C-alpha cells in the first residue's frame, strides 16, 4: 500500500497505481487525451502532467506510479497554463469544424477545451488540408482531425495485431496511415473498427449508410426490411442515456417501426439458423474426424483476419454464413416468396454493433438471392442518430414484438452477442443433434466471461469434445498459432471446436458501439444478454418454431442443397501487404 498526498488529500493505493488513477480515487480528475482505461499508457499527449514536491520537472500522471510519501499537485496555476497551451497547440493544427463533425458533443478534445476554458486559439498552424481516406467500405479516416494520440495504432497493433495503421514520416509531417498512404481499403485492415471506438476525436468513423437508408425508407416503391444483431439490444439504450447493458429489445422494434421500416425482423432468428447449420457441420465433422477443429465464421473481422494471416485454416472454417448474411439471403427468397413481394423491391437493412459487417455485405459472394443479400448496414451509433433525427426517444417507446417469419428467436441466439455465446449455443444444439436428448445444465459457464482464451470439455455421450473461445485479434492469433503448430507437429489439434470473435468482448465490444465505450461497459452488456437468455421460453436454437417452419416449408433439412446455396459461403487467401485476394 502506497500512502501519499494528492492536493493535500491523503490517499492510499496499491503499489504500482499511477498518479492518474490515484487522483481519481481522491476525487480529482486529471485531464488526458491519449490514455484509455483499456490500453497501456503511452504518454503521447502530455496533458496529464503533474508536479511532485522535491522532484524536479513535471511527471506524466498516466505513466508515473505513485511513490510513498509523495506530495502531488495536479491543478496548480502553472499546470493549468501548461495544459491550456498544449491544447491550444493541438487546436492550432486541428480542423475545428466542430458543428459539422461526427464527434460533435462526443469529442474528448472538445470537452477538454471547454473544461480548460479555452476561448481563443492564439496560433494557426498549417491551413493545408490533407485528403480524407475513403478507400475503405467500412471506415473513414480524416487526418485533419487526428491529434496523433496513438490510441488507434496501439489498439490495431497490440490488441488486434492487425497493424493496418501505423505512425508514418516524422516531425510536422507525421501522419497515421496505412503503409505507402495506400488507404485503409487497400491495407490489411480487417474493418473491426476498434480504432474508431478508441479515437478521442473525429478522425475515424464509419462509412455511413444513413442517407441511403432514409432514401429507401422514403421510397414508396421499396419494401424495407430490417434486422438487428444480438448485441444491439443491449447497446442502443446507451445512445439515449440509459445505463450500459439496458435491454431494449421491445422498444427497439417499436422505434424501428415508427421511423418507417416496413418489416421489423431480428438477426437473432438467423443466429438460431446459423447454429443449426453450423451445429450440423460440427456433428458431421466429429463423426468423420475430418478438418477438426471446426472454427466459427460469424465475425467478418475475424474472417478477413483469418484470410490474411491464417489462410491455411480455411479448410477448418465453418462454411456457414454469418447470421447477417443468412438473414439477407432469406429475406429476398423465403420471405419474398411467402409474402409474394418481388425481391428486387426489397431493401435489406441490418443494424450491427460492427463496422466489418459493412465490408461483409458487399463481398461479391454474398449475392445468393441473385441480388446483394444485405443492402445497407447501420452501426448502433448510426441508428441512434437516425432515431434522434426522427424525433424519437427510445425511453418513451412501448415494448413491441418483431414481425413473423424472420423474427422469432431463442436464448441461444441472443448470447451470440458476447464472447463464448456462439460456442455455448452450438453445444446446446450439437448435444441434441448427436444424442437426440437435451443437454442437462444448459449454462456452459466455462466459456463465459472476458478471459482472453477460454477452454472447456463437453461430454457428448462419451465423446469428449474440447472447445476453445478467443476474442480480439491478439488472442485469436495466439490460439491459431497453437492450433497450426499442433496440426503441423501431430497432424491433429487438441481442440474440436473453436469460436473466434475479432473484437475484445465479442460483438458487445464491436466497432459500431456507442462512443466512449470501455471493457467495463462491454462486460455489462454481455451480462444483460445472459439475463435475456435465462428469461426466454426457448433456450436452444433447434426449439425455435420459426426455424422448424423454415426447414419444413423452404430449406428441407440442415446442410441440404438449398441451404448450401443460400446459407453457406467460401473464403479466399489474402495478401499481408494490401489485403487483396491472392488465391481462391
Amino acid at each position, binding site marked *: 500500500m502506497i500512502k501519499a498526498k494528492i492536493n493535500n488529500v491523503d490517499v492510499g493505493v496499491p503499489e504500482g497505481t499511477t498518479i492518474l488513477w490515484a487522483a481519481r480515487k481522491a476525487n480529482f480528475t486529471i485531464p488526458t487525451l491519449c490514455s484509455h482505461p483499456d490500453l497501456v499508457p503511452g504518454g503521447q499527449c502530455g496533458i496529464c502532467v503533474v508536479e511532485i514536491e522535491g522532484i524536479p520537472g513535471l511527471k506524466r500522471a498516466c505513466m508515473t506510479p505513485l511513490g510513498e510519501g509523495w506530495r502531488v499537485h495536479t491543478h496548480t496555476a502553472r499546470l493549468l497554463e501548461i495544459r491550456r497551451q498544449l491544447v491550444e497547440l493541438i487546436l492550432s493544427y486541428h480542423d475545428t469544424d466542430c458543428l459539422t463533425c461526427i464527434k460533435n458533443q462526443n469529442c474528448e478534445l472538445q470537452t477538454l477545451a471547454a473544461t480548460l476554458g479555452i476561448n481563443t486559439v492564439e496560433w494557426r498552424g498549417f491551413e493545408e488540408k490533407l485528403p480524407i481516406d475513403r478507400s475503405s467500405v467500412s471506415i473513414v479516416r480524416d487526418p485533419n482531425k487526428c491529434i496523433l494520440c496513438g490510441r488507434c495504432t496501439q489498439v490495431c*497493433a497490440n490488441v488486434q495485431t492487425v*497493424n*493496418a*495503421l*501505423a*505512425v*508514418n*514520416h*516524422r516531425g510536422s509531417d507525421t501522419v497515421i496511415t*496505412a*503503409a*505507402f498512404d495506400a488507404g485503409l481499403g487497400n*491495407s*490489411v485492415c480487417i474493418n473491426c473498427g476498434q480504432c474508431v471506438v478508441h479515437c478521442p476525436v473525429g478522425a475515424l468513423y464509419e462509412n455511413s449508410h444513413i442517407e441511403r437508408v432514409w432514401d429507401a425508407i422514403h421510397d414508396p416503391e421499396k419494401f424495407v426490411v430490417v434486422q438487428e444483431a444480438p448485441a444491439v439490444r443491449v447497446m442502443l439504450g446507451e445512445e439515449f442515456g440509459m445505463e450500459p447493458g439496458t435491454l431494449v429489445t421491445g422498444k427497439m422494434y417499436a422505434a424501428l417501426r415508427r421511423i418507417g421500416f416496413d418489416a421489423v425482423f431480428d438477426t437473432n432468428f438467423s443466429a438460431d439458423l446459423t447454429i443449426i447449420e453450423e451445429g450440423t457441420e460440427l456433428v458431421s465433422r466429429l463423426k468423420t474426424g475430418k478438418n477438426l477443429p471446426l472454427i466459427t465464421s460469424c465475425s467478418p473481422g475475424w474472417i478477413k483476419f483469418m484470410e490474411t494471416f491464417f489462410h491455411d485454416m480455411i479448410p477448418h472454417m465453418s462454411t456457414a454464413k454469418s447470421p447477417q448474411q443468412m438473414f439477407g439471403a432469406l429475406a429476398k427468397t423465403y420471405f419474398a416468396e411467402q409474402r409474394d413481394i418481388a425481391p428486387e423491391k426489397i431493401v435489406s437493412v441490418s443494424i450491427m454493433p460492427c463496422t466489418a459487417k459493412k465490408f461483409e455485405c458487399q463481398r461479391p459472394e454474398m449475392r445468393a438471392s441473385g441480388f446483394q443479400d444485405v443492402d445497407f448496414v447501420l452501426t448502433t451509433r448510426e441508428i441512434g442518430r437516425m432515431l434522434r433525427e426522427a424525433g424519437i426517444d427510445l425511453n418513451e417507446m412501448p415494448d413491441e414484438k418483431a414481425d413473423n417469419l424472420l423474427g422469432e428467436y431463442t436464448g441461444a441466439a441472443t448470447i451470440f452477442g458476447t464472447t463464448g455465446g456462439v460456442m455455448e449455443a452450438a453445444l446446446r444444439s450439437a448435444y441434441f443433434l448427436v444424442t437426440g436428448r437435451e443437454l442437462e445444465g444448459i449454462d456452459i459457464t466455462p466459456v463465459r466471461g472476458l478471459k482472453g482464451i477460454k477452454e472447456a470439455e463437453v461430454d457428448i455421450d462419451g465423446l469428449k469434445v474440447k472447445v476453445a473461445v478467443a476474442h480480439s485479434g491478439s488472442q485469436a492469433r495466439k490460439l491459431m498459432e497453437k492450433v497450426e503448430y499442433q496440426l503441423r507437429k501431430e497432424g491433429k489439434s487438441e481442440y474440436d471446436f473453436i469460436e473466434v470473435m475479432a473484437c475484445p468482448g465479442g460483438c458487445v465490444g464491436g466497432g459500431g458501439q456507442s462512443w466512449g465505450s470501455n471493457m467495463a461497459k462491454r462486460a455489462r452488456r454481455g451480462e444483460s444478454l445472459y439475463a435475456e437468455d435465462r428469461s426466454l421460453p426457448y433456450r436452444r436454437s433447434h426449439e425455435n418454431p420459426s426455424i422448424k417452419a423454415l426447414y419444413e416449408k423452404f430449406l428441407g433439412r440442415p446442410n441440404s442443397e438449398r441451404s448450401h446455396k443460400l446459407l453457406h459461403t467460401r473464403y479466399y487467401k489474402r495478401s*499481408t*501487404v494490401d489485403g487483396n485476394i491472392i488465391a481462391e
Partner: protein
Amino acid sequence: MYRKQILKKFNPALDNILYILHDLQDNNPEHYLAKEDIRVCADYLGVPYSYVHSVASFYTMFSLKPRGRYIIRLCDSPPCHLMGSQSLLDYLKKELKVNVGETTRDKVFTLELTSCLGACGVAPAMMINEEMFGNLTPAAVDAILEKRRKEL
C-alpha cells in the same frame, strides 16, 4: 532474386532492420525502397509490413519514391549556408527544373538536401552518390553535372 541474396547476409533480428533497408535501397536500380523491398524485409524479420514502412518513412536517408541515377545531396548546414549554398540550391533547381526531393524527367538526377557532410573547410559542399565535391560555384556545378551526363 537479388533481394534474397541481400537478406541472407543478415541475421533475421530486428536490430538489423536499418542495415537491411540500406542494402535493399542501394541495390534497387531506382535507388529507393519499393513496396517489394518493404515486404521482403517484413517477411524476413517477421514483423508487420506497416511497421517496416513506418521505420523507413521516419529516416530521411530512405526514399520511398523512385530516384535518379545520380542523387545530389547539397549540404544545408550553417557553414555551407554562409558560403552561399542557398544560391547554389536555387541554381540547381533552375538547371535541373526540379524542387528538393524531386527527380529530373530523364531520371538522371535527384535533388536532395543533407545536414553537415563534415566538409566545412571546403564549403559549400555536396555529394553525388558516394563522391564529395567542395568549393562549389555555379560554374563548378555545371562542369560536374555535364560530366555525369556524358557518362550515361
